[in-house]
Each structure stands twice: as structure tokens, then as C-alpha cells.
């Protein structure tokens, strides 16, 4: 089982869009996927029409009083399950702090799901906190959406600097341009500059598309509701890059699809 986190210190950069579409595409490829909506705002849960509520709240999960797999909900898509958000996740930091090894707590919570899932996708809240640290320690790959602005670059530097300070295992970082606008000179300049700084950047940039914004109206990943559209194409390219960076083996030979979309 691999763990992939869509993470950035900044908010509003496309983390949830990335997490839900990557999770959906992985499931469609035959991987058994769990998406954990760690953001108390519950946007990913909303997109999958799952109520953002976990019995006992985040504390029950973090303390192990309620097993993680008990709270999992199936989405409407094959192979894709969701661990919903809960408003109490805003206090996860406090609950983690009460644990003996808060940094490795998230990874340890997910470990028992290794037989059930090939991939866990974490949709993280913005911030740098104990929860983010726990995410960084749990993830095999960090997918970092970046809006090409100077401020974004600063937060990326902060993040990579922070990870460099880890002893032991570190996640691989794959940054990618999000809400990219090729017509803007600043975007083009910053995009040209970053690779020189040594951070791995995906070849795929996700442009600012209204279709992506409309996902919240459709309440489904854009890759599922408009698979032939432009946005879906970009996300597929990004998923291909993320998949190889995450070191995922070929998808398992799942049971035959007895049911196909009706014509």
C-alpha cells in the first residue's frame, strides 16, 4: 500500500481537486483506493455526496477507540472508498499531541488497511501543524499544487526545507503547477525558474479551467463526469506521473467487470 498526500501549506491551490481526481483515476485503473478527507471543511466528502461525519469524531480515530475501517464509506465508484471529514478534525492536532508518537500516528493508523487498499490518498488541510507533520511522515509521495506566484515559491521552500530536516524516511515531493495560466508572463517566468532550484516538478501543469470549478456543482470528480474533457486529460497526465513517482506496481488483476455501462 502506498500513501499519497495532496498537500500545501497554502489554501485554495487545488489540493482537493487533485486528491479526488487522482483517487478516482487510480480506482478506475483497478487500484483499490481509499481517500481520506482530512480537511474539516469536508470538500472532498461533499464532492462524493458523503456526509462529513465520523462517529466519535477525529479523537476516536486518532486514539484508536474506533478502528479506521469502521468509519469508511463506499463512494459511488468501484474500488474507491472514502474516510469522510468531520468537523472535529480541526482539533486533530490536540488529539495527536496526546499520543505517544504523534509523528508516526497517521501511518500506524493506516497500516492495518494494507491488505484492503493499494493506495491511500490524503486530502490535507492547509497549514503547517502537528497533523501536517504526521501526514509528511506517513506519505510516500507528496503532490504539491503550486500557483505560480512568488509567495507560493516561498511556501514550497519552507516545505522542502522542513522535510530536509527529517531523520529517517522522507516523502518524495512532486510539485506541479496548478491554476496555471500560460498567458500570464509571471506564471511563465516562475515556471521556468523552479526546476533550477532542484525541486521535482511534474511535466503536467493543471490550468485554471472553469470545468474544475464546476465540480462542486456536479458533485463528482471531473475525470468521472467529463472524462473526455480537457481537464480530465490534464489530470490523467498528472496521475501517470504521480503513479510512477509513487512506485506503484501494476494494478492488480481485479475481478472481471460483469457489468458494463449500458449503451
Amino acid at each position, binding site marked *: 500500500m502506498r500513501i499519497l498526500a495532496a498537500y500545501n501549506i497554502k489554501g485554495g491551490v487545488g489540493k482537493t481537486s487533485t486528491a479526488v481526481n487522482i483517487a478516482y483515476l487510480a480506482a478506475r485503473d483497478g487500484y483499490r483506493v481509499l481517500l481520506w478527507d482530512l480537511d474539516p471543511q469536508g470538500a472532498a466528502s461533499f464532492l462524493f*455526496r458523503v456526509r462529513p461525519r465520523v462517529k466519535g469524531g477525529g479523537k476516536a480515530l486518532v486514539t484508536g477507540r474506533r478502528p479506521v475501517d469502521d468509519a469508511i464509506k463506499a463512494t459511488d465508484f468501484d474500488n474507491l472508498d472514502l474516510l469522510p471529514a468531520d468537523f472535529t478534525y480541526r482539533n486533530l492536532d490536540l488529539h495527536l499531541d496526546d499520543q505517544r508518537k504523534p509523528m508516526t500516528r497517521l501511518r500506524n493508523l493506516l497500516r492495518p488497511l494494507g491488505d484492503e487498499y493499494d493506495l491511500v490518498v490524503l486530502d490535507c488541510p492547509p497549514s503547517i501543524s502537528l497533523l501536517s507533520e504526521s501526514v509528511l511522515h506517513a506519505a510516500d509521495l507528496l503532490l504539491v499544487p503550486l500557483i505560480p506566484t512568488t509567495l507560493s515559491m516561498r511556501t514550497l521552500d519552507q516545505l522542502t526545507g522542513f522535510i530536509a530536516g527529517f531523520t529517517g524516511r522522507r516523502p518524495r515531493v512532486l510539485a506541479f503547477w496548478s491554476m496555471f495560466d500560460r498567458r500570464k508572463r509571471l506564471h511563465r517566468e516562475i515556471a521556468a525558474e523552479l526546476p533550477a532550484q532542484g525541486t521535482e516538478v511534474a511535466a503536467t501543469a493543471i490550468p485554471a479551467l472553469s470545468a474544475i470549478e464546476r465540480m462542486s456543482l456536479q458533485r463528482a470528480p471531473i475525470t468521472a463526469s467529463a472524462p473526455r474533457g480537457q481537464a480530465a486529460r490534464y489530470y490523467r497526465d498528472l496521475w501517470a506521473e504521480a503513479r510512477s513517482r509513487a512506485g506503484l506496481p501494476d494494478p492488480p*488483476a481485479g475481478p472481471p467487470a460483469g*457489468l458494463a455501462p449500458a449503451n
Partner: protein
Amino acid sequence: MQRRPEVVPIVNAVREFVPAGGVPTAGDGLPPIDDPRFAISPGTRSGRLRRSWLDTFDWRLFRAGLILEYRLTRAGHGELLLTDRDGDPVAAETLTGAAAAVPRRPFLPGALPLGPVRERLMSVTTIRAMLPVATAASTLTEHRAVNTDDKTIARIVVERMTVLPAPKPGATIPGAPKPGAATDSAATDGAPAPGTSDRIAIIPLRGYQAQADRFAELVEQAPGFGPAAHSAFETALAAAGRRPGDYTSKINVELAGDLPAAHALAAILGRLFEVALANRDGTIADIDTEFLHDLRVSVRRTRSVLKIARSALPPSLTERYRPEFKWLGDLTTPTRDLDVFLLTYPSMADGLIGANADELEPFRDYLRQQRTTAHRRLVRGLRSARFARLAEDWQRDLARLASSSRHRPVTGPYAAARIARTHRDVLRTGAAVTEGSAPAALHELRKRCKELRYALEVFASLHEPAQHWRAVNELKTLQDVLGEFQDTEVQRARLRGFAAQMIGQGVPATALLAMGEIGAQLAVRQQAARAEFAGRFAAFSSPQGQARITALTGAAR
């Protein structure tokens, strides 16, 4: 592609419903649901499915509480699902590529890829092949039950299943449905074909069991729908005119003690021939070795009955048919002898000390060649005019016997007398066997024992089951040791014969030396059996041993 770990997923409780009387419904087959909490989102996915339920000819899986289903969704893609009788999963296996074709013909579980299904099947079915007991073609349409958030809480799969005619032994299970191909009348013309039934499965999504249960309750209350009382397996089997366990090699004839013996014997002999005929096609198709074995046992029992009960039968009947059944028995012997060699080959090869297993391989090749030839002769015999005439005349003459006016003797006392007589024969023949007796003397005793065993078995319904079991068990202990002695005697003789023939075929000397070791293994086993015989016979002929048999002769009703 890596293989998914063979773990049976824990699924939520699926609930199944059928329209009233199981008759297909008009339209989409969905129940009307009028509740603000739920709605049905109409089908977005559909598919075809070929389902076959497999078991051994003698229902070993079902008797062990198991049901095996093979599902073909498309060419080269199959699933084997092993469940208990309640439909709860025991093991599952996805078969792709060449492996997907394995269950389409009768197969031995050893032909399956390594995995939990194969492991479980092998422990239950041992040397018997898996055969389709019912086959059906289904069209599936998936709808969704959604809650007020338009979130799917359960999948609703409407299955329209048409049971296909039962395949003949050895035939191939029809292939996977081709996408869009019009293969089933039920699926194409709207008018359900005979043997067609509808079934609705409510499959809860993870985390939505409670809502799915509430939805299922609404379906249950919908007019014209009710819970499925029978599984798809039971429905398909019934439509195919079969029932679980409908074949047994047992002589399941209920006899009354005051029945004329001739009538009882007609029923017993008729049943024995029914078993022989039931195994004929499987023997010809060479599905597994047990078809021939059961056929042979049936013939041997028939011959014994014709001998030990000849005084109650018209002489013309025994004169005509005793040579015919001897012919039939002899026809089956060469193939069976070679089967025994081939079945015990792995353990014989494992027991080699001086030679290695590779050196013995030419012997296995030789056995296989010989068996092919012997089986061809056997098939010719079973398809011959002589066999056809025997079958027709025998059944006709048994029907006449069943309605004949031979009212004496009556079954109860007659059975007791025959059992007592064969018992005395065993005691007398056994008493004459000494340490220095020739193997032929033990062979004679074995034959007498078989006659007694068959006498006990054919008249079993006259006796109290526990008494019957004790008597048979007493005898079986003696028969086992005699069987071991005589089988090894025959095998040693056959082995010498094979070796003589193989020399002429330029077989390597190492193979013959390895066969010499096999001969020695057989001799050791034979000596052990001989050494054990005296003790076993002493127990059998002791007053307690005798009492177990005489308890029956006195108790015959």
C-alpha cells in the same frame, strides 16, 4: 499484472428478492418504491453472465456443505466462487487466460492454479472430477438505490436467469456471452423463455448497511415481491430437473420382509443396473476413474446377487445373464487394473529407495499407453450391440420378474437364510486357510467375503441400521486385509508381465530396476497383509464377531 491476494472480501449482507412465483416481471423488473427517503436511480450498467454450478458426479461438495460456481463474464475471464450452502463465501479465485478455460470441461481440481479454491476442492473431491450440474445464462441490469443526498446506498442488481439444458457428461460448458450477441431468447425477445426467473439483489455499499436494510424492507413490502426462498443455485437446479444429491451409488431400495423375494431381487437388480447405466457415459468420456469403479462395483454386486440368490430367481434368468455380466465385468478389468497402478503411482515413486523417481518415468509412460488401448477396448464394449442388447433385455426381464407370480420365498426369511449361508461359507473357507496356504486360498476367501458383504448391503433396508453397521464393519476389517493381500498379488503378477513386454520395447535398464523396487514394495505389503490376516480372521470368527452377523439373520423382518 500482479495477482490480487486471494482473500475473500467481507461483504455486507446481501438481500435477495423475487417477484411472486419467481415469474419474470414486465418492464425493468423493479419494485415500486414510494418513500421520500429513497429513490431508485435507473440502470446505468448492464451485462451478461454465464453461470455454472459444479460438483462431482456423486455430489461430494454438496455433501460437504459446499457449492462451487463458475462465472464467465467474457471470453478468457472467469471466476470460481466456493460458498457454503447459505451462500457465504469460503474461497474465490479469478481465472484469466488459459486457466479460465479449465472449468469449461470436466476437470480435476489439480488442474486449477494454486490457491485456496484448489486447496479446498482437492481435500473434498480427491480423485473425482468437477462437472457442471446446472448452467444458466443471465442478463444483469444494475440500478442504484439513492438517499436524499442522491448518494448511492445500495446497488440493485436485477438478474434474469435462463437455465440452459443440462450438458452431457464430458461436454463443454457453453462459452462466455459475447457482448451484444443475441444468445438468449430471454434476453432478446422480451418474452421469457421456459426456465427463466427474475431475482433482485440489494447489495449494500460499505458504510450504508442500515439505510440499505431500510430500503430492502420497502422492497419486501412492495406488492408482488417477496424474499427469495431459494438460491440461484437451487432455482437453476430445479429448472434443470435435478436436485442436490440425486445420484448415489448406494442401493437405496426399501424392502419389506413380506415381499416376495423375486420382487425384492428385481428391485435390487434394477437399482444396480441403474447405477451401472448412470456411470456408462462418464466411463466412456473418461471423466475420472470413479465412473468405471462404480460401474464395476455395480456389475460385481449384480453377479453376486445372481449367484447367492439364484434359488429365488427363474433358472432361465440366471443362465442367460450370469455369463453376460461376467463378460461385462471382464471387459472393465484391464482398464481398472491400470487405473489402480496409475492412482498409486505417486506413492510408489515416493517410496523408491535405490532408484530415483525419474528412472521410473518410462513405466508411467508405458502404463498410460496401455491404459489408452485398454480404455478404447472398453469403450467399444460399452457401445457394442451386445451391451445394448444386454441392457434392453435385462431391464425388460427384470420388469417381468417384478410382476411375476413367484410369491415364494418371501424376502425376510430368504435374506436371513442367504446371509447365514454366505456367512457359513466365509467361516468354512477361512478356517481352511493356514500359514502355508497358496494365495489362491486367500483369494477364494476374499470372494466369499464379497458375497457376504453384498448380501448384507442389498438387504440392508431389512435391518436395524446400527446392527447393520456393526456387521459390515466387522466384515470390512477382514476384507481390508484380504484386499491388500490379493491386490498386491495381482499387481506383482501384472508388474512382471509389464516388465516382460517393456524389455522388448527397448526401455532403459534403470526403469526395469526401479520397477523391481516397486515389486519389492508390493511384496513387503503383501507379507504384512498375510501376517495380519490370522488375527483379523480370529476376531471375525470369534463368538463376538459371529454374533454381529447372526444378530442380523435373527432380526430379519
